[in-house]
Each structure stands twice: as structure tokens, then as C-alpha cells.
């Protein structure tokens, strides 16, 4: 039990990821307002991306931009560039899907006059 606790406390980025991920997920499940659900969805998305970027970090390394293009390159001096590339795509696609979800919210409000899940369900019956 003790070694699990010290392992968690050494990886404070991972602890932050777990807290934000689970809290955002809980908001998506329990809130009735659609925009509030989308806030939770955004938190889940960004927390997963945060975890991926955390994996790419190396102790004492700089950003993956080559300092000298002629000298031989030491890979441990630069952060791992591959998670950065994948998360760039994930951020942009995430905001694109968020835009579609917000347009859906706007259309729902025009039709049903509310963003509350239960009021919408009542009007559907």
C-alpha cells in the first residue's frame, strides 16, 4: 500500500490527470444542462491530452527544435516529439467536434426552448 502511495505522489501529473478525468466524466453523467455536460466533455478531452504530453517529457530536455543542425544529435536532450504531433491532431479534432455539439445545442434550444434534459424529454412526449 505504501509503495502505491509514494508511486502516485511521485507522479503528480498522473494524479492531476486522474482527478480531472474522473470529475469531468462525473459531470457528463450527472448534470442535466447540456452546456454543462459539454464542459465536462472538454475537461475529459484535455485531461487525456495532458497525460499524453506528460509521457513525452524528459528530465533536463528542451523543446524538440534542433539547437544545431550540423553537430551530432543527442536524442536525450530533446523532448519526445511523437506524442506532441498526435496531440496536435487530437486538440484540433476535439474542438471541431465541440463545435458540432454546440451547434446541436443551439438547434435544440430553437426547437424546444430549453437546454435542460428533463424539460426536453417532457416536451418530446
Amino acid at each position, binding site marked *: 500500500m505504501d509503495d502505491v502511495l509514494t508511486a502516485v505522489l511521485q507522479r503528480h501529473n498522473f494524479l492531476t490527470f486522474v482527478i480531472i478525468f474522473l470529475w469531468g466524466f*462525473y459531470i457528463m453523467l450527472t448534470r442535466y444542462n447540456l452546456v454543462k455536460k459539454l464542459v465536462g466533455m472538454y475537461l475529459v478531452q484535455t485531461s487525456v491530452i495532458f497525460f499524453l504530453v506528460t509521457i513525452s517529457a524528459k528530465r533536463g530536455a528542451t523543446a524538440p527544435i534542433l539547437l544545431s543542425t550540423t553537430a551530432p544529435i543527442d536524442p536525450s536532450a530533446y523532448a519526445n516529439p511523437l506524442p506532441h504531433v498526435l496531440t496536435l491532431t487530437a*486538440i484540433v479534432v476535439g474542438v471541431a467536434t465541440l463545435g458540432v455539439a*454546440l451547434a446541436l445545442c443551439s438547434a435544440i434550444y430553437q426547437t424546444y426552448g430549453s437546454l435542460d434534459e428533463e424539460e426536453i424529454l417532457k416536451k418530446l412526449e
Partner: protein
Amino acid sequence: MTIAVEIVLLILLLVTAAGAILVKDLMSAILLLGTYSFFLSLVWAWLGAVDVAFVEAVVGAGLATVLFLVTLFGTAPKDSRLRRPPPPIAALFALPLLGILLLYAANDLPEFGDPNSPASSHISPIYLENSFQDSHTPNVVTSVLMDYRSLDTMVETVVIFTAGIACALLLRRKAS
């Protein structure tokens, strides 16, 4: 010293995320969410991911906040429900269980900042060593994004185009 800065940034991240969740007024919640995005981009710049930090500051803190605010101006800016029914039992059991499992698995993760972790040791040194010869760009992230994985990036624009068409169709239906 370096650890202290990072912990302060992470605490600010948690506080702004909690604010975005707990505040009743949706407008304030969205603005706090923009602050959260900005602190996230600061953390990423701190970890050496400058390209990701720029994209998060522009797209996450800028564009996403603007999209949220435009939607709220067109709809109800308040959460109309003051009292919520109790949360479902399944969520109360499943989410802490998931959290305990995730934290239990932390023991097996590579140590933070370890240069020999599996993610950093298999193929990423090859990209770092060869990207300048192959694409003549000092920024390795740019050369991987625009050169090695250019097809991936091109199809990503198709995804964004589809999202744009979907938004246009949804909002046109509203006007008619």
C-alpha cells in the same frame, strides 16, 4: 525549484477546473474553462511541448471559448435547475472504482521524465536524428506533422471540413 513551479501550475489547473464545474452561472463557468485552457498551455510549455502549447492557447483557450460564448448568447446563459436529484448509484460506485484502479496502475508507469521510458526509447530517437537530413526543418514536430505524417494531416482537414458542413447545416435549419 523546478518542481515547485510545476506543482503551483498543477494546483492552478485543478482550481480553475473545479471552478468551471462548480460555478452555477454558465457564462462564468465558460470563462473559467478558458482560464483552465490557458494554464494547461502554460504547463505544456513548461514540459517542452511548445507547439502543443501554442495550439491549445489559440484553439482551446481562444476558439473553444468563443464557440461556447456564441452558443450561450443564443440560448439560456443560466443553469435553470437549482436543485438536482441525487446522482445515480452506479456512477457513485463505478467512478471511484475506476479512479482506484488507475491510481493502482501508477506503480507500473515509467517514472516521470525518464529518458529511457518505452515511449521515448523505441522509435522517437530515429525521428530526432534523421528528420533534419530528410526534411531540412529544424523543428522536429513540424517535420513529422507536415512530412512523415502529411497524409494524416491532410485527412484531418477533411474531418474539420465535415464538422464545418455539419455546423452550417444545423444552423441553417434554425434560420428557416
